[in-house]
């Protein structure tokens, strides 16, 4: 295995990743002097007088006290739902249509507006708080020739600021000078791009000399491009004393970065506040909508069709009735078309506008009466329910990461239920499956294998004597005692010398920056003074290098100082100052890196490390003994890579004077060359990187996170396909795949490594032919399996695509794909994803059980997600931790960020964020399942609840000469969905759970319920609607027959209906509740009590025509008998079907529930249940 080029190591992502949103800006960044911003250094007043620069005050809050009301209303009315409410309320204000009282009709709208406004206000208050915290931070700003603290919000463009170490940068700043003579500053850009390593920035030589720690004599003009959100580019000119020079990306420090390892920097603010790149980039990620919600919208469409039909029927009825009675309209005692008294209105029509208009008005007023047929309040209910669900997800103890102290985060509140239907999981590898904590594990030195038994060295054993410097590493590294002993042996044997050089190479051949922590460390030795103990931390672009340097330090070779010309290494207490004559950086062609070092004794050596494939060819041939070592090392390397370790080969060579001279002159030429510098350097490297002496090999482990194999196994049992997309090498990816049980040894591996379109196409076709993958439309069926899957019906894709026929068969799929694994690399993907081969890949990939994509670029990750997303209806989930996963996270239906080593970029883009990969298991199998079941039921129940009410009103209207009278009082009609029946819905949506988390985790296959759309599908919708129809007929006709030819008045009838429908829908809900805790009882029965309370109150207000109704009604036994009969008769068919299904055709969930209840009763029974598979 080989060294990974720093620029391609997954952790150093800055060059590869750009926030997706910035891409569109790239082309526009054409810099013209004339439209640039002019910044007068240290003259904010002049700078700001011409241009309207923003101050440095930032505002993420949306509202102020003054504009809250208008602005919030404006934003709220962007939602269709509210416009619907508004339109209905407005319709109701028209005199001919006034169905409800004016105030009453506004109530639902006001209620919803208030609830939302309250929520918005609370969120905004929190934003205000964090804003004011940011704005009131202080920085040192040059004010009247002295650096004095100034609040961030008062800083302006043109101000000269001084930042001290570990301080945060307040605005985008062009460096003028730093504490370092050469003008170098190190910054950490974690908040910006998520990278934890340090980056270097430079002040221009022209200005560094003018800057002192307490003063700044620079007074030039900077012309820079207008503010933009591209954090990887900056173009500007600076004019200083008539001399003009360019500024670029390496001269600017962005807001949000932290100064590290540099005492101070001084710079001038070029962009402040909202114009800073950090703020321009803080746009929210696009909001996603859940699958279930889009299905729900389809059904809502059906409901609007029903609504239209009902309104049309009423209008038609009204029209026909008017035509039939048009001669009597004047005299009908209950119609009275005209004013007949000889008043001023004599002969005029009283609210009569002719038959066509009356028909039309009747249509409109029936929309008002039937408005809740479209369950607009459902959207609000769903929001509340999702909020409650998030509360439980966040609070789940099993998803709390104790190591980092992070809880689960719900960053998006719209897609909770999607978690219950995930079919594909796309996972990043490094940092997601693995811990991304590189650890030096094994070493092969001089043909000998070390590291099989590692001990944590209590302290640096080599430095036991007092007086010597003791280096304390941030993390303890176990060492091999044998190797330590070898190093301490005072011998001149080859073995000892090789080992010495081996570790020198590890310590010297890298680009790592050592950082000495100033904090005093608690004494670790007894009675030993701690003044000589210093802790050291290594910062570098590649975690692999950090691991190697740390390991060298643990063995006594501590790199503790690096300046541009030399490095200082502490070798077991002796300080060794080495001149670095030259450095050939890693590149992907050579796949190795080398340094040329002059030792204090004037010996010049070249130290090389690199990937095994590139190293063995340049080793010196000849001596017999070498061959033995070679073979040993080779076999060690094989052993390491089988264990999933990342390996590097270490070698060195002495340079003769002539060689050195030749190299040196050419190196200087090349490194100052303006054209083709890297190619020239590469050629020169070949001069010295030859005839090397093999020192040994290293193996670094990137440990799997805890519980990853188990989680993957569970997900797979649940019918979820896990794909790993990694920037790593193929070998590494495969070895990780093996160790996390994604791949097993007996799997057939299909490897696609094409370098051209034709090759890829051939490889794909071969693989498809070989493993019998059928093409496109037939989906992924294997001929061999077709014979035994006659029962299967349509193929899997048709099955999952059409909701109305959930005939998905889990068995079939697993049977065909059990043995296939697809491994594909980024180069092939370039050809495949951009050409017509996509569908070929899709066919192949979906028929494999495992897909590993290696060496993929961030955008390719998104491309692969898109491949699945655009071709199936299956839901995808992407999980990753780094900035390179952002595009994939945003592309997938559900994006999950791991809050890990690599900052917050992935988390910021994600919908959910958590501490470890293994939480995915509980998130999907338990919370996903629950959320899906709950929301699915919630939607159906809300449809039912509103439709049954509306239908009941509809039947009654046919008894009122189609005059859209509602027997119910206005308030009851309005309160029905707001108060009478809303609370239990929310409670059930948040709290009801069909199965305990233990059962769900024990039988991952129960997750298939979500794949099969069991909780919500078209069929269920229509069944529910049929049930609704029946129940509404019962509701209407039972009282009508019971009180036929009686003295019952309209308000009594309305009261009876109000109570009946409320009890009915609540009992209906009660029948479906899976789990009865106290709160359910309170909500369900409480709602009925509240309804009675409201009815009693409404009937106690004498000014309402319905005054006293309930008191009269409640005295009559017939009233109570009617209600009881309605409830029983309405629910009888439903109960019957439920009983039949439960007893004779139980679903998996129902069986599991029975088992659960049973095992609760007899705990011992649980052991008898064989765990599936």
């Amino acid at each position, binding site marked *: 295995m080989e060294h990974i080029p720093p620029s391609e190591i997954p952790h150093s992502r800055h060059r590869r990743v750009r926030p997706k949103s910035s891409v569109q800006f790239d082309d526009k960044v054409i810099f013209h002097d004339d439209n640039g911003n002019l910044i007068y250094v240290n003259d904010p007043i002049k700078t700001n007088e011409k241009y309207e620069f923003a101050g440095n005050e930032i505002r993420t809050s949306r509202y102020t006290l003054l504009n809250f009301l208008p602005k919030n209303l404006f934003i709220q009315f962007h939602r269709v739902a509210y416009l619907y409410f508004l339109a209905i309320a407005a319709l109701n204000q028209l005199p001919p249509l006034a169905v409800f009282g004016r105030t009453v009709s506004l109530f639902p709208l006001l209620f919803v507006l208030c609830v939302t406004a309250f929520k918005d206000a609370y969120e905004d208050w929190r934003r205000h708080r964090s804003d004011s915290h940011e704005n009131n931070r202080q920085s040192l700003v040059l004010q009247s020739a002295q650096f004095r603290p100034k609040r961030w919000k008062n800083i302006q463009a043109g101000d000269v600021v001084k930042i001290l170490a570990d301080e945060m940068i307040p605005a985008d700043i062009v460096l003028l000078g730093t504490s370092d003579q050469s003008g170098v500053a190190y910054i950490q850009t974690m908040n910006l791009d998520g990278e934890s390593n340090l980056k270097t920035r430079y002040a221009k030589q022209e200005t560094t000399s003018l800057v002192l720690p307490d003063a700044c004599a620079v007074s030039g003009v900077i012309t820079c491009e207008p503010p933009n959100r591209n954090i990887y580019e900056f173009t500007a000119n600076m004019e200083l004393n008539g001399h003009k020079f360019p500024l670029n990306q390496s001269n600017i420090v962005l807001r949000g970065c932290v100064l590290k390892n540099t005492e101070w920097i001084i710079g001038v603010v070029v962009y402040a506040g909202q114009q800073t790149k950090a703020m321009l980039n803080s746009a929210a990620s696009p909001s996603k909508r859940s699958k279930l919600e889009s299905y729900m919208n389809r059904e809502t469409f059906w409901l609007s069709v029903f609504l239209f039909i009902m309104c049309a029927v009423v209008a038609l009825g009204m029209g026909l009735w008017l035509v039939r*009675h048009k001669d009597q309209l004047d005299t*009908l*005692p*209950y119609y*009275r078309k*005209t004013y007949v*008294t*000889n008043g001023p*209105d004599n002969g005029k029509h009283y*609210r009569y506008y002719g038959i066509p208009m009356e028909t039309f008005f009747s249509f409109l007023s029936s929309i008002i009466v039937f408005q809740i047929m479209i369950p607009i309040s459902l959207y609000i209910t769903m929001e509340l329910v999702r909020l409650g669900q998030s*509360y*439980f997800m*966040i609070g*789940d103890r099993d998803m709390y990461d104790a190591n980092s102290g992070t*809880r689960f985060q*719900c*960053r998006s509140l719209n897609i909770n239920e999607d978690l219950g239907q995930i079919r594909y999981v796309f996972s990043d590898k490094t940092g997601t499956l693995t811990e991304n904590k590189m650890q030096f594990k094994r070493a092969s030195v001089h043909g000998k294998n070390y590291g099989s038994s590692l001990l944590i060295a209590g302290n640096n054993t080599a430095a036991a004597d007092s007086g010597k410097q003791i280096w304390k590493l941030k993390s303890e590294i176990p060492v091999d005692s044998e190797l330590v002993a070898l190093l301490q042996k005072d011998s001149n044997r080859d073995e000892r010398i090789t080992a010495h050089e081996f570790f020198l190479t590890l310590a010297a051949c890298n680009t790592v920056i050592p950082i000495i922590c100033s904090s005093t460390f608690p004494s670790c030795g007894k009675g030993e003074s701690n003044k000589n103990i210093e802790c050291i931390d290594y910062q570098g672009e590649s975690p692999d290098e950090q691991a190697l340097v740390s390991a060298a330090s643990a063995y006594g070779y501590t790199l503790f100082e690096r300046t541009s010309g030399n490095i200082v290494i502490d070798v077991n207490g002796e300080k060794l100052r080495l001149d670095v004559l030259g450095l050939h950086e890693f590149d992907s062609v050579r796949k190795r890196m080398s340094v040329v070092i002059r030792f204090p004794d004037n010996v010049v050596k070249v130290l090389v490390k690199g990937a095994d494939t590139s190293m063995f060819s340049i080793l010196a041939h000849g001596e017999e003994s070498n061959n033995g070592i070679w073979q040993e090392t080779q076999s060690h390397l094989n052993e390491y890579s089988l264990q999933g370790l990342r390996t590097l080969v270490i070698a060195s060579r002495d340079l003769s004077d002539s060689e050195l001279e030749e190299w040196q002159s050419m190196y200087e030429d090349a490194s100052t060359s303006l054209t083709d510098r890297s190619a020239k350097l590469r050629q020169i490297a070949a001069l010295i990187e030859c005839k090397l002496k093999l020192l040994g090999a290293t193996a670094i482990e990137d440990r799997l996170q805890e519980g990853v194999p188990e989680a993957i196994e569970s997900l797979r049992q649940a019918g979820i396909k896990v794909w790993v997309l990694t920037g790593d090498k193929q070998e590494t990816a495969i070895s990780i795949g093996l160790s996390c049980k994604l791949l097993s040894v007996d799997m057939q591996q299909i490897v696609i490594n094409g370098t051209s379109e034709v090759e890829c196409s051939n490889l794909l076709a071969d693989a498809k032919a070989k493993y019998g993958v059928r093409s496109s439309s037939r989906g992924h069926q294997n001929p061999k399996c077709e014979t*035994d*899957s006659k029962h299967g019906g349509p193929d899997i894709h048709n099955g999952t695509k059409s909701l109305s026929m959930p005939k998905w068969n*889990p068995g*079939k799929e697993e*049977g065909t794909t059990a043995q296939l694994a697809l491994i594909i690399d980024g180069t092939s993907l370039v050809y495949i994803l951009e050409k017509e081969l996509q569908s070929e890949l899709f066919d192949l990939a979906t028929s494999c059980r495992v897909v590993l994509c290696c060496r993929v670029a961030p955008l390719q990750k998104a491309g692969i997600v898109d491949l699945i997303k655009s071709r199936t209806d299956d839901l995808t989930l992407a999980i990753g931790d780094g900035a390179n996963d952002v595009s994939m996270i945003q592309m997938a239906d559900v994006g999950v960020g791991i809050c890990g080593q690599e900052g917050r970029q992935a988390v910021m883009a994600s919908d959910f964020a958590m501490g470890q990969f293994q939480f995915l298991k509980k998130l999907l199998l338990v919370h996903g399942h629950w959320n899906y079941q709950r929301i699915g039921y919630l939607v159906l129940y809300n449809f039912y609840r509103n439709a049954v009410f509306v239908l009941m009103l509809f039947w009654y209207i046919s*008894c009122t*000469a189609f*005059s859209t*009278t509602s027997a119910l009082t206005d308030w009851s009609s309005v309160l029905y969905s707001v108060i009478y029946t809303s609370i239990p819905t929310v409670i059930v949506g948040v709290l009801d759970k069909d199965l305990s988390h233990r059962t769900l985790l024990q039988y991952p*296959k129960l997750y298939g319920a979500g794949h099969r759309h069991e909780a919500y599908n078209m069929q269920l919708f229509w069944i529910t609607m049929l049930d609704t129809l029946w129940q509404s007929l019962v509701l209407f006709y039972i009282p009508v027959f*019971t*009180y036929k*030819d*009686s*003295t*019952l*008045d*309209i*308000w009594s*009838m309305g009261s009876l209906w109000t109570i009946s429908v409320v009890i009915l829908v609540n009992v209906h809900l009660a029948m479906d*509740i899976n*789990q*009865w*805790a106290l709160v359910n009882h309170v909500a369900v029965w409480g709602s009925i009590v509240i309804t009675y309370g409201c009815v009693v109150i409404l009937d106690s207000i*004498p000014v309402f*025509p319905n005054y*006293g109704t309930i*008191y009269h009604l409640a005295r009559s*036994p017939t009233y109570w*008998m009617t209600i009881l*009969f309605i409830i029983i*008769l309405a629910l009888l068919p439903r109960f019957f079907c*439920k*009983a039949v299904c*439960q007893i004779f055709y139980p679903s*998996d969930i*129902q069986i*599991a529930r029975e088992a*659960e209840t*049973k095992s609760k009763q007899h705990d011992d029974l649980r052991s008898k249940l*064989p765990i*599936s*598979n």
Partner: protein
Amino acid sequence: MPWRVEFEYSRFSQQELDAWQPILTPSWAISIFTVIGLIFIPVGLASLFASESVVEVPFRYDDECLPPDYKDDALEYIQNDNINKTCTRNLTIKNKMKAPIYVYYQLGNFYQNHRRYVKSRDDKQLRNKASENDVGSCSPEDYTSTELGHKPIVPCGIIAWSLFNDTYRISSNNKDLVINKKNIAWKSDQLAKFGSDVYPKNFQIGGLIGGARLNESIPLSEQEDLIVWMRTAALPTFRKLYGKIETDIEVNEEVMLVIENNYNTYEFGGRKSLVLSTTTWVGGRNHFLGMAYILIGGVSLLLAVGFLLLYVMQPRPLGDPSYLSWNRNPGSLR
């Protein structure tokens, strides 16, 4: 949206509250059906029995009381004030009626629940003398005509305007059966909805006369016919209480009905009936609820038996994992 709440790890936040998990087992289903059956059948029987014991004598008189000469011109008959509208009929009561006997009038095809009608009233005006001018929702019956001074009508609105004005007298063996018209309205309406200081004013004085006139010296709270009428009916065929007879009527007793047939239902083909009826705890004579209860009770019992039989023939052990879909279908096992 970032969301931070401070948590304490409780059984609630972990969703592990103790809860009852109902499972619809066969025994539950069977017992529920049985219980429904056992409750419904007796209740139904009792209700049916009570309803059966009610004696009801309906007499439809809109066509019956129309003189044969006016058969084809009912409107002329009813609108001409000069024609005598009195109509006398004899009825034989087949069953003994025990006091109190309720006298109802029943109107058919009269949409008292029409939206235009229901809304045409003003409850403030009815309650409160001070709100006499409050006729906002009453048009077109809000003010008198201009000749009459454009004054507010009390009670306003077409409900009051169309007040029923047929009157009945019932006698048996030349002895009047007194129809008591007191306490026919709801007490609550009399006490709180219709003011004791609100007197009818300008009512039924101009233009088209809709129905009965009101005695202007009696406050609305005592105008019980009006109060009854203003409780608009729920359905287009409805009864309203006219009065109560507080003496029994014996079997085969012949009663004479004297009906003043004033109310114009011929206009829209509405039916008018006079109904004498006794009452029990279920109300009037209506077998529907009793029969429905018995029917559903019976169906429930049948279902219970059905479930029992099916279950005995095809039992399934509860929570048996071998019934799980992936276990039932061996093809799916890897």
